[in-house]
């Protein structure tokens, strides 16, 4: 009896000792949706190669992520691996010395310059996060409803609004466009950023804007506000109080036709209602457009905490993120998060494939307010949330919103200074 107990105790002691000798990595992330995925799929796959490295995925709710991460970094209690938001926010962490340069990481050559741009210094010399995925904007539609009423996905802006009118007439109880404005960001992200590149001309337009040749109040940028304003009559009843999750619920329940989407919604909708049949179409082309654009936005990456005591193990993990194995696991488990590797990755989900196919027919560009324009207060992205939702709520006119944003931006963004005088801001 005692002997048996001794053996058990010994086994326990050995096990504990074994656990203590393994290195333990903690991942900070805002993706608490993916808790199960990391725990059951990704980490076990990594552990097949490195059984001695224990990895813990410890997400924080997205709204609190920045605040919590900052506090922990300052006090030195943050995890070893840090999930990076794109552009300014992560650059700030790198500047303050919380993130380590990863140029020499084996596998970094598997990314294009575009993929790395969201997590590199301006001159492109230093990259401090390993790119994980980008997201693409477009429109999802309810296949069953479209078939029932005999609708087809629109190709041009004209067709798009004609279709919305037809929906309103034929099915007054269903919402033509399923989106609310309560959370504000959806108006900017799924609205303005979604359709904008077609009007301002993608990367070329974005660069002209950065250089000060264009402003929010000029040409295609202004048009984007105006076109967005035309969405308002087609939004669901009470849309001003409809939050993002409410809109998702409405769409999966078949209470509306078209959902202005981010590609990440695909996986979410599959999970919420596996029976839902969806189709997708890219942002409709404006009249007379010769070239077409989509928003293809690097969204998530992972970096290494400079204060981590397990840097070698953490680098092994980051290196593994650059492999095809990870790309396929991640891209297929999270439909709509598209890996940024420069080799082809097999994506199985047909709707996600549709989104991905647009990369061949459209030129991609990332959300234009993210780079530089949101580095200082008042930042263009937060202003765009306010402006876009106010336009749809009818509390701001499109031209007024454009002028307001340009005045705020040109108050600090040097290349736009001349607009400040031209527009008579501050008077």
């Amino acid at each position, binding site marked *: 009896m005692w002997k048996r107990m001794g053996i058990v105790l010994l086994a326990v002691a050995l096990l504990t000792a074994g656990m203590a000798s393994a290195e333990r990595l903690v991942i900070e992330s805002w993706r608490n949706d993916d808790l199960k995925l990391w725990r059951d799929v990704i980490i076990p796959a990594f552990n097949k190669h490195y059984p001695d490295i224990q990895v813990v995925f410890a997400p924080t709710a997205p*709204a609190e992520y*920045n*605040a919590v991460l*900052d*506090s922990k970094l300052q006090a030195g209690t943050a995890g070893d691996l840090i999930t990076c*938001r794109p*552009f*300014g*926010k992560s650059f*700030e962490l790198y500047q*303050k010395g919380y993130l380590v340069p990863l140029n020499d990481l084996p596998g970094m050559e598997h990314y294009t310059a575009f993929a790395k741009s969201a997590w590199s210094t301006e001159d492109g010399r230093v990259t401090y996060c390993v790119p994980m995925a980008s997201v693409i904007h477009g429109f999802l539609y309810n296949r069953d409803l479209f078939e029932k009423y005999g609708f087809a996905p629109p190709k041009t802006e004209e067709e798009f609004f004609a279709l919305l009118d037809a929906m309103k007439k034929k099915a007054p109880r269903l919402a033509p466009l399923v989106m*609310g*404005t*309560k*959370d*504000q*960001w959806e108006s900017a992200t799924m609205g303005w950023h979604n359709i904008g590149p077609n009007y301002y001309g993608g990367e070329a337009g974005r660069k002209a804007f950065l250089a000060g040749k264009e402003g929010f109040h000029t040409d295609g940028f202004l048009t984007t506000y105006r076109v967005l304003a035309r969405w308002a009559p087609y939004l*669901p*009843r*009470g*849309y*001003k*109080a*409809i*939050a993002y999750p*409410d*809109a998702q*619920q*409405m769409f999966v329940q078949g*209470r509306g036709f078209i959902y202005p989407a981010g590609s990440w919604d695909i996986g979410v909708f599959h999970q919420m209602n596996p029976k839902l049949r969806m189709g997708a179409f890219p942002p409709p082309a404006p009249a007379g457009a010769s070239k077409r654009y989509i928003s293809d936005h690097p969204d998530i990456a992972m970096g290494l905490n400079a204060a981590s005591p397990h840097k070698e193990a953490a680098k092994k993990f980051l290196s593994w993120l650059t492999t095809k194995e990870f790309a396929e696991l991640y891209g297929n488990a999270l439909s709509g998060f598209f890996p940024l590797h420069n080799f082809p990755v097999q994506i199985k989900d047909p709707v996600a494939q549709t989104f991905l196919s647009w990369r061949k027919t459209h030129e991609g560009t990332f959300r234009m307010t*993210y780079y530089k324009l*949101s580095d200082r*207060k*008042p*930042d263009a*992205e*937060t202003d765009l*949330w*306010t402006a876009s*939702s*106010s336009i749809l*709520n009818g*509390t701001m006119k499109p031209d007024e919103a454009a002028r307001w944003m340009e005045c705020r931006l040109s*108050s600090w963004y040097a290349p736009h200074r001349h607009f400040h005088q031209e527009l008579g801001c*501050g008077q």
Partner: protein
Amino acid sequence: MEHAMKRKPFPWHLVVFLAPAVLVYTVFMIYPMVASLTFSLFQDAGNGRQVFVGLGNYVRLLTDPLWRDPFWNAFRNNLIFFAVHMTVQNPVALLLAALLVTRVRGAWIYRTVIFTPAILSAVLIGFAWKLILSPTWGIWLPLLDRLGLGDNEVAVALLGNPSSALLTLSLISVWQNVGIPMMLFLAALIRVPRELVEAAQVDGATGWRVFWNVQFPLILPTVGIVAILTFIGNFNAFDLIYATQGALAGPNFATDILGTFFFRTFFGFQLRPGDPHMGATVAGVMLLIILTGVLLYLYGWQRRVGEVQY
């Protein structure tokens, strides 16, 4: 020698009574607060250095339009938030407490039920009310349709209209917190000697008259405590608005109060990095506002009514 013998002994009992509380409080509350508040006197000079700017940040907060406008907006909203609590929450709490003290049957059940929302987290309260008021759920719109208000733009989206969102949230907060002043009033009312009330009743006074002439004057100190606690609580409020409207306190900052303004400034938001210097400045101003209220209470109100003994 004799003189020394007569000197009062050192009041050790004072130390024993006060030291533990003061110690815990100083180390875990005052020290971190003061450490952070000093940020408000500095600014980032780039390259990780900090320069002392004196009260520069405070001047900036109150004069630079970029800071001044959102600050006054938050302050004004906060005043409205407080006004709703003073005019709705506290009178309702007093009414409920006055009813409960008459020893109606099942008073403890009512008391427990009414206090319940105060125990629940803002996350839950915000969630529940968002569901009730959401146009996508089958509660609010059918109700409005039945009342013939289905076409009213404001009523359809109470939390989405700038004109109604703040008032709606204030009332939700009242709904949640009314139990707290109710308990304080009740604790005070119960201590009013029964003989006084009965004597007044024998004289033929109605319940209303008894309450105003006998009970209310005796609980005036508690009325003051409730008012000042409401003030402190409201000007430090954060959770409910954050849980229902998010850190941006939409629509278009219509529900932004000092607590949410502070949070956004200090910790940053989405893409925008936090600004500990301006954030601490906002906190410093909040401290001044609340301190002013507390001093007014201590020297204005309490001096006058605090001496009531019974």
